């Protein structure tokens, strides 16, 4: 009976309900875009670290886990490797430079990441070969860059960096292509530490002598060992280091926390607006229907039927709104340039849709309560 009443009311007032569904659709678009933006911004910041096959990150002490401030030597790497329970470790170094193309394409700022060929930190490849020679000017690029620019394995690219007061250009060969790994809002170009040390922006173009300094060491633990025990062992054995897991390191990067907090606040406000809008609409509608609800109760419709009909109506309208909003998001997404860091993934979208499905009933709670409280006496103009 509830379904019979709610579906007929929605269908026969479809103009009004579709209009309201459109409001929910707009809220859905806002929520999904903000969620995707949050996800995209997070990815742009952390994707490379996220995809590292590492359990722990070792950084220099007293740098507040800031990756760019931290300096780690080759000696420390060897010390880390010697700790019982550490299966693999690799030194990584980060900087930024610009890819320059001679076919008229715009230059592209990239994160250049130095790794030791064959050690932890080298990415898995979609095609091509891994870095295997420290001195060769080979790079691995991510597939987003490859697809956007039209680069293939074996192609040569020119990398520009500032060394001293001059721009230096380096010809690098693409050895392999990996999946998307953004880092600090730029696509990654991965190379050997030796090449990295040569091409990175620096105060003097003169070749650097001695060991290359990295920014962090990625550590993979042996199977079955307790992470906290190894953490303790590392800190107690090796001087002037700090150890944390990947999530802690990511969240400690400057700007990451405030950025995500801002996005989450926007998302929260969008939900709140949703709850208030849904609540307001259904409340007004229920108040308009008080005489009708009184009549229905006077002729013997029980409260359960009235309440369930009100709830179903809210759910139907919310679902229609979310469906329209979902289609809208898809169509808009097709037209949004790649430069906007939107990232839709299944958990993010499902969480947003689940939350949106809840805002209808939550927003409509007051109206359902009003519907339940209507007295059948109102049908004859009385009240208890």
């Amino acid at each position, binding site marked *: *009976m509830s379904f*019979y*009443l709610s579906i*007929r*009311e929605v269908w*026969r*007032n479809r103009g009004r309900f579709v209009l309201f569904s459109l409001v929910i659709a707009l809220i859905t678009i806002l929520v999904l875009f903000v969620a995707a933006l949050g996800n995209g911004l997070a990815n742009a910041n952390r994707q490379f670290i996220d995809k590292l096959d590492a359990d722990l990150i070792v950084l220099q002490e007293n740098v507040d886990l800031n990756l760019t401030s931290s300096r780690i030597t080759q000696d420390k790497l060897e010390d880390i490797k010697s700790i019982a329970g550490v299966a693999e470790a690799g030194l990584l170094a980060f900087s930024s430079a610009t890819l320059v193309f001679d076919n008229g394409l715009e230059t592209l700022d990239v994160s250049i990441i130095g790794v030791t060929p064959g050690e932890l930190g080298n990415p898995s490849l979609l095609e091509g070969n891994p870095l295997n020679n420290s001195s060769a000017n080979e790079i691995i690029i991510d597939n987003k860059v490859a697809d956007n620019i039209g680069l293939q394995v074996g192609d040569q690219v020119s990398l520009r960096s500032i060394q001293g007061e001059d721009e230096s250009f380096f010809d690098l060969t693409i050895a392999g292509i990996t999946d998307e790994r953004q880092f600090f809002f730029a696509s990654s170009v991965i190379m050997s530490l030796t090449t990295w040390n040569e091409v990175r922006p620096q105060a003097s173009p003169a070749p650097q002598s001695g060991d290359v300094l990295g920014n962090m060491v990625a550590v993979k633990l042996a199977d079955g060992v307790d992470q906290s025990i190894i953490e303790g062992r590392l800190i107690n054995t090796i001087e002037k280091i700090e150890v944390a897991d990947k999530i802690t390191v990511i969240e400690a990067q400057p700007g990451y926390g405030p950025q995500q907090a801002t996005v989450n606040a926007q998302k929260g406000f969008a939900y709140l607006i949703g709850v208030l809008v849904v609540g307001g609409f259904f409340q007004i509608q229920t108040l308009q229907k008080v*005489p*009708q609800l*009184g*009549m*229905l*109760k*006077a*002729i*013997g*419709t*029980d*409260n359960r*039927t009235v309440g369930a009909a009100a709830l179903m109506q809210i759910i139907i309208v919310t679902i229609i709104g979310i469906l329209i909003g979902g289609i809208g998001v898809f169509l808009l997404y097709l037209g949004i340039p790649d430069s906007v860091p939107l990232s839709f993934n299944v958990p993010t979208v499902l969480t947003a849709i689940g939350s949106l499905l809840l805002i209808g009933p939550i927003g409509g709670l007051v109206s359902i309560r009003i519907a339940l409280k209507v007295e*059948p*006496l109102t*049908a*004859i*103009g*009385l009240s*208890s």
Partner: protein
Amino acid sequence: MTTALEITKVSKIYGKGDNAVKAVDQVSLDVKAGEFIALVGPSGSGKTSLLAMLAALLSPSEGSIFIDNSDLRKMAEKERTRFRREKIGFTFQANNLVPYLTALENVSLMLKLNNVGNKESIQKAEQILVRLGLEDRLSSFPRQLSGGQKQRVAIARALVHNPSLVLADEPTASLDTDRAYQVVKTFSDLIHEQGRAGIMVTHDLRMTKHVDKIVQMVDGKIVNIISNQIEIEALSANDSFGMPIQIPQNTSSQLNIPLAPPPTVSTPARV
């Protein structure tokens, strides 16, 4: 005829202590199956409160109400809702119909609420609507119906589930005179035809032409019951909208009710 409704010394008091107001005062009345009664009286006479108690919408403060031998006092809220659904038919002054349901659906709704199957509900609803001359309005929504047609749909809904008691709260209040007569006549015919007990609350004596009894209430009490058909015809022929029934001198002046020629009405509190 069997007694469908038995009201014994029913009172309804609103509020407590110094603020207490006695809306219905020691009313007793029997209504038989197939009997159609008009409950008349000025505003504040207690007729709507009495109607609400008969509809199991309000509990009496005192006394008892039996409908089809079921004691309303002993029913819990849920039971009373079910009782209203099964045993009572109701038409109201306004907001009678569900606006988003067609005439046919509005009538069949009553049967669906009583768990009658969809096909049977539609069939029965159609039959009664055709009987009421609405065969070409079955698919019309309330907004597409005239006032009289709406009331006829409401009457159909009030009777379609074979209730023991049919209640009508000012069913002609929003209709012009001709339509109002038609509606009351239809109501009366169906109640007599189907052997239901019917009570109509009205302030317009012209609408009592087709009833079997006129019950007059003043200050919460039944002060007159007229069952003589000649008297009923005479009263209903009066064109005044007042209450042209003689009432006790001590209350008439206070209520400013116009006096009519002396009635030949006995005044038992219970019939």
